């Protein structure tokens, strides 16, 4: 008889949404999160507003967390990690270990959803010339989110409001030399969203976005990109900054203004690096423990992605969200719904065929 429990690994947006939906279906679900808090990146990295809709990240995520927690079919284990897995679809045995004290427990699950997400690219790595660890005023998207969440976007080294801020796109994405050849999908939109928030909080601040090409499909185009340009006068300049140097107490960014056909060297008070997505440590670890194939970049491989975007190389194990590669929240939530449905139907199909077999043999 197939176990009627779905094991969900990861307590971010995808994991929480899958848990909530399975609970609504009346399917038993166990959600494991290695951190002590739920909410994933939006909570862990103090996001300001979510796209799309510009809702407070904390408020929106808390709603999701409460919905998952309140469901009687859902059991949530924070501070637990996945250590071992055996078995197959219908009968997985997954050993969980409590972080710190080594207490262990085995969950018998009919199917598994992996929602272990991403981590941001470390801009101090390798060929990056942006001095993230050298200059206080070179920050990342996450650092900007934190300041905006507190409604205090300032020059970190001075504590005063900046006159000029720029974003540098594709940091750690679309770069053969770094090894991350893929587009991280959301950074164009997130930078533009942050640019709007900076302009709203500090209207005298000039904001520039240096880009390779803006990739703003779907709602990003008219909810974020056009208003950023037309209403908030964010300046988009096609050309990537090659290096940042210190000039007096300011930063000087060097690049090419490609559409005007001239080199540029402009002073900035704050430089925000639009760091891309990489598979999180959890994604890489869990893929190994569960025996899931990973792609060239260590994201979980989806073998039939066009018509079956949540499948993995192991039957009965499904993936949702950025564990399978860069995703925005809309795609992550849709994927979580699909994965929840696949996980539940895997169990029910096995249970139905088992009961048919039993009634046939009786």
């Amino acid at each position, binding site marked *: 008889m197939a176990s009627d429990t779905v094991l969900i690994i990861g307590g971010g947006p995808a994991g929480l949404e899958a848990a909530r939906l399975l609970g609504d279906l009346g399917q038993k679900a166990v959600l494991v999160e290695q951190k002590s808090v739920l909410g994933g990146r939006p909570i862990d990295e103090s996001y300001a507003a979510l796209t799309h809709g510009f809702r407070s990240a904390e408020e929106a995520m808390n709603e999701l967390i409460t919905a998952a927690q309140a469901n009687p079919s859902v059991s949530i284990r924070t501070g637990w990690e996945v250590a071992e897995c055996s078995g197959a679809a219908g009968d997985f045995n997954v050993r969980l270990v409590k972080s710190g004290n080594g207490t262990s427990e085995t969950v018998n699950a009919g199917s598994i959803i992996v929602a272990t997400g991403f981590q941001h690219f470390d801009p101090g790595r390798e060929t990056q010339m942006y001095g993230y660890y050298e200059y206080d005023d070179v920050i990342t998207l996450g650092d900007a989110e934190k300041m905006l969440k507190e409604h205090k976007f300032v020059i970190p080294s001075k504590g005063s409001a900046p006159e000029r801020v720029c974003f540098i796109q594709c940091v750690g994405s679309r770069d053969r030399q770094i090894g991350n050849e893929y587009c991280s999908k959301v950074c164009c939109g997130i930078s533009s969203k942050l640019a709007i928030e900076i302009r709203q909080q500090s209207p005298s601040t000039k904001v520039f976005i240096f880009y390779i090409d803006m990739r703003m499909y779907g709602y990003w185009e008219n909810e974020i990109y*056009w208003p950023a*340009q*037309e209403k908030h*006068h964010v*300046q*988009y*300049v*096609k050309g990537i900054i090659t290096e940042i140097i210190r000039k007096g107490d300011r930063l000087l960014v060097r690049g090419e203004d490609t*559409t*005007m056909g001239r080199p540029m060297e402009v002073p900035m008070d704050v430089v925000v690096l639009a760091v891309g997505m990489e598979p999180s440590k959890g994604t890489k670890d869990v893929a190994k423990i569960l025996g899931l194939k990973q792609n060239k970049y260590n994201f979980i491989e989806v073998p039939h992605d066009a018509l079956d975007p949540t499948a993995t190389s192991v039957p009965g194990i499904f993936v949702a969200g950025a564990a399978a590669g860069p995703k925005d929240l809309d795609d992550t939530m849709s994927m979580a719904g699909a994965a929840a449905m696949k996980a539940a139907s895997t169990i029910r199909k096995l249970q139905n065929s088992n009961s048919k077999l039993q009634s046939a043999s009786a």
Partner: protein
Amino acid sequence: MGLFADKYPEVPLAEKERLWAEVKADSRFPAYLYGCYECGICVASCPSARFYDFSPRKIAQAAAREDLELIYEQMNDDVWNCSQCFSCNRCPRQNSPGGLITIIREVAVKNGLKSAKHALEGYGRVIYKIMGTGTQVSPDMLQPDAFPDWGPQVRDVSAELDLWRRALPPETLHTTSTGWQVDEKTIIELYLIWHHTNVMDMIAEVDEGLFMILNDVMEEKLEEAGYEI
């Protein structure tokens, strides 16, 4: 040697800022500039871009970025290379680089920029004809002796003018003998409009001589009609 061989004067940044503020204050400005994709469709459709170092995209971009240095340069040079055909209105963001140029040119003229005077030198007679008579230069006026400054090609064009005009698709067959004349009431109204909307001041700013001749013509007719300017 280009049109702007004798270069325009350098001015302080504050002056560039003042000129730009005048452009932005124009009521048409918000409808002419949204945001620029830098896609280049305006340049692709621009006839002037084929012949001059001219880019309507750069006009829109400089305006969007409020690049004061570049805008001043364009106000004195690039904008005079535009034929104001508005092919650039094909913009997917609904910008109008040509419309921006209209405003920028007007600001250049109103402020008596040297480059504006220079660019408009050749148009004195056309303006005199339009503003004096209230109607345009009629194609049958295009005779070699009448426009020697338009170059030797006027002779070739005028020789077969009737044929040329029949070959053109639009209705351009009006001449001085077919409804060219503007009636007295209309011409008086036109004179009044030009006076009251400061067009005469603009003319005075770029061409003092032309202003005096036009003013004489207008004053006489307006006085006859009982108006005093």
